[in-house]
């Protein structure tokens, strides 16, 4: 598509990116016990800059097979995130405050505003909550529920705002210790995005990984 900026507004895909960036920077050994939400958030919070590899699969009713991309996610400081796709093609997206740019090799960079859809604003703010380790901010925007134990936890986020919920049904973040492993976004239009992070992203994958493979990786039980 030739540099069209304007309508790329309510892009739901960013959230995972964001979230992940926020959460990602951690590649760290597990600490003992964290059953409480606040405890988990405190451990997830990380200073910038940091980066982590990722593998992301996008599932859609339009697609016969998932679109899989791999690359690096970077947290560059407050409000600054970057997502670089290295395979199967090159693309770099950056988020700086309110503005996002997507640049693909051989095409002019496309610039657009995160906030063309109001729900983005809320979501971005909320993920800031995740990064900052502040449970109160998150709870203003999401219904949160935490399952599992320190070795395998699962944090569910359901948007409270019905407008946001019209685009994103829920988000699930799983991981162990202070290390998030996978972030799954369930969109209202039946698309699903599974984002594998760090160690999960480094795992060898088959030539044509299917949904089952991604879900297994996400759960990380059979590590």
């Amino acid at each position, binding site marked *: 598509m030739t540099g069209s900026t304007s309508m790329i507004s309510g*892009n739901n895909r960013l959230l995972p990116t964001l979230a992940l960036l926020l959460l990602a920077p951690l590649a760290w050994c597990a600490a003992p016990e964290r059953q409480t939400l606040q405890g988990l958030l405190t451990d997830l919070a990380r200073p910038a800059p940091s980066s982590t590899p990722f593998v992301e699969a996008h599932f859609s009713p339009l697609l016969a097979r998932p679109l899989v991309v791999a690359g690096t996610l970077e947290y560059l400081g407050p409000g600054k995130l970057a997502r670089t796709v290295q395979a199967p093609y090159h693309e770099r997206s950056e988020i700086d405050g*309110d503005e996002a740019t997507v640049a693909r090799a051989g095409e002019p960079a*496309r610039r657009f505003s995160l906030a063309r859809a109001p729900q983005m604003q809320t979501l971005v703010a909320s993920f800031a909550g995740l990064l900052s380790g502040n449970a109160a901010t998150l709870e203003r925007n999401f219904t949160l529920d935490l399952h599992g134990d320190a070795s395998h936890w699962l944090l569910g986020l359901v948007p409270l705002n019905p407008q946001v919920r019209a685009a994103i049904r829920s988000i699930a973040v799983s991981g162990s210790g202070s290390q998030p492993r996978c972030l799954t976004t369930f969109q209202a239009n039946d698309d699903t995005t599974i984002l594998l992070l760090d160690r999960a992203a480094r795992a060898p994958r088959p030539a044509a990984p299917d949904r089952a493979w991604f879900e297994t990786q996400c759960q990380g039980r059979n590590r």
Partner: protein
Amino acid sequence: MRCAPPAARFGVAIAVAWIGLLLLLGGYVFTRLRLSGDLRLFLPTPRTRTERLILEEVSAGPASRLLMVALGGAGTEPLAGTSRRLAAALRSDSTFRLVANGENLLSTIPDTLLPYRYLLSPTLDHERLDASFLHRELTAREQDLASPASGLLEPWLPRDPTLEILKVLESWEPQREPRLLDGVWFNGRGDAALLIVETAAPAFDPRAQRVAIDALRRHFLAARATPAIRLTVTGPGAFSVLMQHRSEADARLAGFLDTAGMLVLMLLAYRSPLRVALGALPLVTGGVAALATVTALFGTVHGITIAFGFTLIGVAIDYPIFLFSHQAPGVTGAAAAQAIWPTLAIAVAGLAIAYLAFLLSGVPGLIQLACFNVAGVATAGLATRYLLPRLLPTGSRDFGRAALAGRLAALWAGAPRMVWLGPVLAAASVAALVLAPGPFWQNDLGQLTPVPQARLIQYDTLRRELGAPDVRYLMTVAGATADQVLAEEEHLSGGLQSLVARGSISGFDDAARYLPSASTQERRRAALPEESELRASLDQALRGTAFRPGVFEPFLKDVARARQLPPLTLARLAGTPLELSVGSLLLARGGRWTGLVTFADVRDREALERLAASSGGGAAQLIDLKEASENLIAQQRVRILWSVAAAAALLVAVVYAALRSPLRTLRVLAPMALTTLAILAVLHAAGVALNLFHLVSLVLAAGLGLDYGLFYERTLHDPRGRRRTLHALLVCATAACMVFAVLASSTLPVLRSIGVTVVMGVVGNFALALLMIRPDPERPAAS
């Protein structure tokens, strides 16, 4: 009093009948008169098609209807939220036609227009919908789906895998967009959110503009995120509201000050409340008669005509003053009126003739003003002669004996005869007129209703930030049909795009940008493949992509529909948001069509001229609105000057016919002529460029000078009568100075220029009449 009872009863009957007549006329005016706020009445009457276009473009064109809105005083987030809410509220208000704040609203494209995307997008000019093109596009769509942009694009893919609708929307976007923050337009510093609003009403209708701006403020108050957010509205419409508001406020204050001042002055001069009340009667009668006349002749009268007209016929307060001051003790009002009537009649006739000049000016507002003043002045004069004397008690006081008049008479008698005064003053004035630098005439249309400088700067800054069209340059493209204009514009667009690339202009806008010509649309439609062919290409293109076969059925259906579509025309756009964009750039006038091409930031005017000259058959023409309107004003002034010259000649003839002596005529007219020349010299030397309102004021000052000259000259050889005349002229001149000094202190430059000019005229005429109208030395004053 001393009046006999029957006479008194007669007087009462006359007073009752008079006031009754005034009330009747007043009632007529009240029920019939419609006030207009349309400032175009004071613009020249267009005589050619181009002139009409220019005036319409200046006063009612799309650029003039734009209001630029800035929201400041808070952070990005609350400002952007306020901008979005405000824009949504304005879009649902029929007072506004277009609202833009940077948000791109896909939903504003009606579903019926969607299949037209293949006829509107330039893609098919250089591509074919074949397997290789589709495969490239589908691969790009896969990457889009896996990118942060997927959320919004995905719903469109089955219907529009080549994203044609995006390409169409992009081509409609302004070429130079303001900075986007939080999804809406912001200024360069990022501290104010910007919006452009087009009002349905033209800029030069201050009343409708006020309604629009009030509505805008109301929506703003409802939309703003915090009370700290401030709203700034600028643009021609906002200016006309500001000017209207200020001129009303100034007029109210001036009216109050003048009335109070006149009451005090009249009481001091005549020491009789009855005379003060009677003195107002001719003026009121003249005013009502003037209103009734313009009501009967025009029906709709401009508010400025009335405000300005009342100022000008205020001169008629002089008539009862002449009558009162000249009424010697024991003389009845009727006798006094009869005695001064020959002189008063010339004064009235002279002033009326001066105003008749404006009938020939070709400016509708001035024609109304002329009728208003001729009717008002003539009625006030006749009322002073025939009605007022019947109500006036017999004279009991010799106003010629008033201390001030006496002192002035002594001063006058003792002043040296300065025979050299006239020639020297005339020579000095001519020298100043010739030697002082600077333009003599004000040709800038914008200066006629001048806006404070700070507001203009604010306007200019915002216009630049928003990339709003340049208000000075405009290209017109003529054609017999709308489609011919569109085709010619398409022809020009290559040249315009290269001018953008070279930086000669930073953008342009024309109807063809939104609506291609029928032949272009037909060519693109012919390039659309048949359904079976497209299906085969698509199947081939899908090979090797992740897309599920069959998801693009809606695309196949839309293309099949587009192959059957008749080209989109202006008529078929009715009811869509595009109708407004295209309609304001494509105008039908008397069976012919004119397309307007507007520019942003014209930096190379010659390049535009060369481009226009290269158009087929001279269809395109670059118009410099500033230059064109200046030419119009200059032409208009030539007509006004000719009519003023004709009026001056007529005036000399009337005075000569009445006085029957070249010497006396010269004596009466010389002070007035010299004063006029001297005012012109002073204004020019002070660097003031003259405008229409200066001319009107000069005529008014000359009318006053004529009064002074005639009455002075009348009592040249009658010392006692001369003192009464001096008393009358003192009261008249003081009254006029007072009224126009109030105007001179107005905040509005137009009113200020009138006030200053007339005050100079009153002082000059009074002093020069005093100094120059003297008894001949060889003929000593009659005993």
